[in-house]
């Protein structure tokens, strides 16, 4: 695209590509949105894995009835609790690894 050279003090010049008009504030906002998006993706993925894992660990596969047994209820509660602890431990390990790099 042909650009007519314009002086740096005239940012409203029409010949500038649209990208140059984006202020650094907008860029930071967009980066924040990307970060939040990644965070949400991560938590959704985590949730789905907990559901899957604790189902496999706790729920009897014979499916004699559709309600959860009391034992299964407790198991699921504890499973989620333990999974969360594992999440924290591994988070620490990865963080300290990153620091030592």
């Amino acid at each position: 695209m042909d650009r007519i050279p314009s002086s740096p003090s005239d940012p409203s010049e029409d010949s500038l590509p649209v990208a140059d008009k984006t202020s650094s504030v907008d860029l930071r906002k967009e980066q924040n949105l990307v970060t939040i998006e990644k965070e949400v993706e991560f938590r959704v993925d985590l949730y789905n894995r907990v559901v899957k894992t604790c189902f496999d660990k706790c729920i009897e596969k014979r499916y004699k009835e559709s309600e959860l047994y009391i034992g299964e209820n407790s198991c699921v509660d504890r499973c989620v609790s333990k999974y969360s602890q594992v999440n924290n431990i591994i988070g620490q390990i990865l963080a300290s690894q990153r620091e030592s790099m």
Partner: protein
Amino acid sequence: MDKNMLGDLDNLPEEDKMRMSTMIDQLQIRDSLRMYNSLVERCFTDCVDSFKRKTLDKQEETCIRRCAEKFLKHSMRVGMRFAELNQGAPTPD
């Protein structure tokens, strides 16, 4: 995973290099997060089998730590070999 694994970016024109670099950074972030979640799932599945209590016992905790460290070392080794293949370097027998 690092950029060396992806082969030669140097032959691209300058503007494409920038866009590729940004894209690769974003993919790496997503890959890191995914790896984190997979690692947690794997080590939990392999190390935790009883749910009589809601907190991890010492054995489970040790198992988890070893699992994570082992996986990371394994991952680095794979990355190393992968990069070697990409660069056409000779690999050990």
